[in-house]
């Protein structure tokens, strides 16, 4: 038996389990979501309404009712705010622990802790701090000498999404921090030497050496944070349930409500396809734009 045909046999044996599981639990559901999005399939079959093809009705409904656009706008706003903020924090902290700082490895180790905390726990803790008689309101009261009254952070339209951004950034920044740290350590020290010789100020060195040298890191951090942001769900489901008045409704929340709570598999599948397309288009556009910057 030739090496090649022997390889074929072994490849089939070794890949078999992985390929079968991938087909069953990734490819089939993916194809099924497209198929189901053209039907009025329900989770619990209703004998009076047999499942049938409805053409583009689900998409028409999703795209003409406000819910989808509202969720897309909220998720987009969340992403547009959290990506730069979290990235800036992560880069600053990475530069801090990369500088000559005593016991910097200890600092780095402690800063990473929020990321290993489960989002449910994080949400619960921050819910305590966002209470009407909680820490944030006390701090606000103290800082403004009582001028600004207590704010119901999670239940007011103007502050709910911002509050979610704050706790999400707290939990998420350490991951980006260690990635920036790796990026910083990969920068050629000679570049800094050269900048020093030229007498660059600290800001100039950052602007012309550090920041541009991290291009690949920026690309990864921006794309990863964006995709993570679009999946926003746990915090919302626990703390605001999409309210007040839909101001924190997200795409995944919408999928959950229609697919699981209302059992409208067909409609939720259309939302899932739209969600996937959104993520896909945004990652392609980002990759394209960020990579093109190099030229």
């Amino acid at each position, binding site marked *: 038996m030739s*090496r090649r045909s022997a390889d*074929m046999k*072994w*490849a089939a*044996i*070794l*890949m078999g*389990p*992985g390929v079968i*599981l*991938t087909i*069953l*639990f*990734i*490819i089939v*559901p*993916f194809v099924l*979501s497209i198929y189901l999005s053209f039907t009025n399939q329900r*989770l619990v079959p209703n004998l009076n309404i047999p499942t049938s093809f409805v053409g583009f009705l689900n998409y028409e409904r999703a795209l003409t009712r406000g819910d989808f656009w509202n969720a897309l706008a909220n998720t987009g706003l969340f992403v547009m705010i959290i990506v730069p903020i979290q990235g800036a924090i992560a880069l600053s*902290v990475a530069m801090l622990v990369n*500088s000559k700082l005593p016991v910097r490895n200890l600092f*780095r180790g*402690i*800063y*990473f*802790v*929020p*990321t*290993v905390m*489960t*989002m*449910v*726990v994080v949400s*619960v*803790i921050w*819910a*305590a*701090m966002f209470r009407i*008689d*909680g*820490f944030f309101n*006390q701090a606000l009261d103290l800082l403004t000498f009582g001028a600004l009254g207590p704010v119901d952070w999670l239940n007011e339209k103007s502050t709910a999404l911002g509050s979610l951004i704050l706790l999400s950034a*707290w939990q998420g920044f350490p*991951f980006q921090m*260690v*990635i920036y740290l790796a990026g910083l350590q990969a920068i050629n020290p000679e570049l800094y030497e050269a900048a020093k010789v030229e007498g660059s100020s600290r800001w100039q060195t950052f602007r012309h050496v550090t920041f541009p040298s991290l291009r690949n890191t920026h690309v990864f*951090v921006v794309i990863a944070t964006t995709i993570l942001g679009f999946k926003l769900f746990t915090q919302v*489901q626990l703390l605001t349930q999409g309210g007040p008045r839909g101001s924190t409704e997200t795409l*995944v929340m919408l*999928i*959950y409500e229609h*697919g*699981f709570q209302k059992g409208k*598999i067909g409609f*939720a599948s259309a939302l*899932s396809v739209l*969600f996937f397309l959104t*993520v*896909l288009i945004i*990652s392609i556009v980002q990759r394209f734009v960020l990579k093109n910057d190099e030229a």
Partner: protein
Amino acid sequence: MGYKLSDYVRLFLALLLIVIVMGPITLMFATSFKADEQQILVDFGSWRAFWVNPFDISLENYRQVLSNEQQPLLRYLLNSTIITVFVVGIGIFVNSAVAFSLSRLSFKGRGAILMIFVSLIIIPMEALAVPLLLMVNRVGWIDSYQVQIVPFIAHPFSIFLFYQFFTKLPKDLDDAAYVEGATPWRVYWDLALPLSLPVVATVAILQSLEIWNSYLWPLMATRGPEFRPVSLGLAQFFGTPPPIWGDVMAFSVMMSLPVLFVYLAFQRWFIQSAVNAAVKG
């Protein structure tokens, strides 16, 4: 060498950041040791939220949480552990075997299969949840361990990380083994897999965190405490108004401790995993 002003500024910033990072976590621990629920609510509005008088430390909340039969904390922890261990344990073998075949064996369609796996990385689990729910509902898997284990074993991103590692291994390595009459299985099992320990660690840590933290899927696919993971247990406990903060925080501490211990023990690996995921991704 003397210290400059900028060094002190940096140290100050570093310490300030410790306060920001550890503040919420301290609040969780402090509150969990306070027995008086009224006092907890009063404390929440001041710096005392982050502090517990050492003489007033009480384990009453822990006692209550551990004896609560509606929300069996230990059962939840056991469920999460079982699910995580099985997904990660089986996943390492399944995913590395796929990657090994794609990188070290030559067969028809190899490039195409690789392409498919790489493009599957982009599909978020959230987009598959609804059709998957219909599928598992049909086969009666709702509310079980397998519904939380089997669909998540194959993991395209883990396959990709293993693939990256295996392609970099020198070709002489397996050639020598093949000359001696080894089968591809032996090369995979005796050579490639043991060498890939750093990738195993990365994959194990990333996938464990993903599974331990998963929320949307168990919310849809489980019904009662029997099979629910701990994240959902806390969510239910917290979501039953009015929240009893002492108990909720004791529950939070209990579910965070295992992860924090593992993190302390393998800190370098955790941080390295994040870097590996980024550099290879």
